């Protein structure tokens, strides 16, 4: 009974925090856009480079096994339906629609959620952000905006990389372990993925990248109180990033691949 009440209270509190947080986040993004819509080129290039360097290897290492996994489980699913020729389309569609943008975003979420939020939070608790302001250099434009844009630019590139790796991983298992024909599999993938799918993937991951880095900068920006505050900021950023991806995924899927039946 006590336990159930605690759980309910935790749920309620969480939901309230979430809504309040979302509203404040929105305000934050608006003020970033107002004060620093166009970031200076130097910091922007630097942030793009840093983010790609941090994410390329993890994306590779996470997506390869995931590609192998859809191939593995997809093959048994498809063999039970008796339609082996559909494995390649299944893999390709899953990869381009969900896996590649999703996992590219996931790794950006992990990196941005922790590294970017911690970086901004350290700048906050060490009063570096105040120093910017006192020197009349707008930190929203010089610190935050480059990170937002970097997320938006780098995530689509990473999703292309992730798509390649996912197909590679799937191909390795399909051909190596399940005896599918190599050429036919790859052609099947190529035929399935339309330019529109690629465009949708790019749009999706750009939005994810923007949302993630916005959450990370937001949490860092409002960090308080030394090392403790930095830790709290990273933690909140990671959770916010994950929730953000899932919500926007739902919204974007509805917009890009047709509204769910309830709206039609």
């Amino acid at each position, binding site marked *: 009974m006590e336990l159930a009440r605690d759980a309910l209270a935790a749920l309620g509190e969480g939901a309230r925090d979430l809504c309040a947080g979302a509203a404040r986040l929105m305000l934050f993004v608006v003020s970033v856009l107002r004060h620093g819509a166009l970031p200076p080129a130097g910091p922007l290039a630097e942030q793009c480079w840093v983010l790609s360097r941090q994410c390329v290897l993890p994306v590779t290492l996470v997506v390869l096994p995931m590609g192998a996994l859809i191939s593995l489980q997809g093959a048994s699913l498809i063999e039970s339906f008796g339609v082996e020729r559909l494995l390649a389309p299944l893999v390709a569609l899953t990869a381009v629609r969900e896996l590649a943008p999703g996992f590219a975003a996931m790794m950006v979420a992990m990196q941005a*959620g922790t590294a970017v939020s911690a970086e901004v939070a350290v700048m906050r608790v060490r009063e570096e952000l105040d120093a910017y302001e006192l020197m009349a250099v707008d930190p929203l434009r010089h610190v935050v905006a480059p990170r937002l844009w970097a997320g938006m630019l780098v995530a689509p590139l990473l999703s292309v990389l992730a798509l390649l790796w996912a197909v590679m991983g799937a191909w390795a298992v399909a051909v190596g372990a399940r005896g599918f024909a190599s050429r036919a599999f790859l052609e099947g993938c190529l035929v399935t993925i339309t330019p529109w799918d690629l465009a949708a993937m790019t749009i999706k991951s750009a939005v994810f990248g923007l949302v993630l880095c916005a959450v990370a900068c937001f949490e860092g920006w409002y960090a308080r109180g030394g090392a403790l505050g930095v830790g709290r900021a990273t933690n909140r950023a990671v959770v916010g990033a994950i929730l953000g991806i899932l919500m926007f995924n739902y919204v974007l899927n509805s917009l890009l691949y047709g509204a769910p039946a309830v709206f039609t």
Partner: protein
Amino acid sequence: MDALASVGAFSRFCVRGVRVLPRMDRRETLDVAASMAFGTLLVTLAVTAFAGAMLTVQGFASLKAFGTPELLGMFISLAGVREVFPLIAAGCIGAKLGSALAAEVATLRTGQQLDALEVMGIEPLEHLLMPRMTAATLVTPLLAGLGVLCGLGASGVIATLQLGVDPGAFWARALDSIHPRDIAAGLTKALAFGALTGSLGCWHGYTAGSGPWAVGRAANLTVVQLMVVGALVNLLLSHLFYGGLL
């Protein structure tokens, strides 16, 4: 070379942890486990509910294209219950608990509280780290299980209310396609993932440097390594339970 040395040090840390298990602070373990569970419940449920909704809508579209929309229940069980829900739940729990743990322990390192414990003759491994590692290991399967149920429930709601699938048929097909093996596989994966979360978080916190920088870095290393190693372990366990990889 450096990487190998740190893997070695990490393994030794884990072995030391297991050795002190009998002397671990049980009360602290329960306290930590409870606060981890309550703190992570909401986000896990939200995430798996969204995943369930998404998978159902996408799966329904694909199945309709093949002309077999009545197989939706089976699809949800095979794709969702087997892989997608546990994976998403574990990833989310791991990211949240792992970064929180790493940041917490790293803050104690930075503020010299870990040194203070040692000087007071209190072994941090027994009173601080093992309770956290154990709690993460226990809480992850529990939450992941709830997450899978929530994902399945959300699928059912979307399928029947939004997509108009017959509830009886959906649930019959869905429940038919769940084997005890799926549950065993899910539990094993979640246990492994939880252990990984706890140990990586504590390790990176324990070995953190000083200053607020170190806190962010510990959290960062933890979540990134967790995702990378977790993806690999997941693939291997899938192979162990369902075969077909080699």
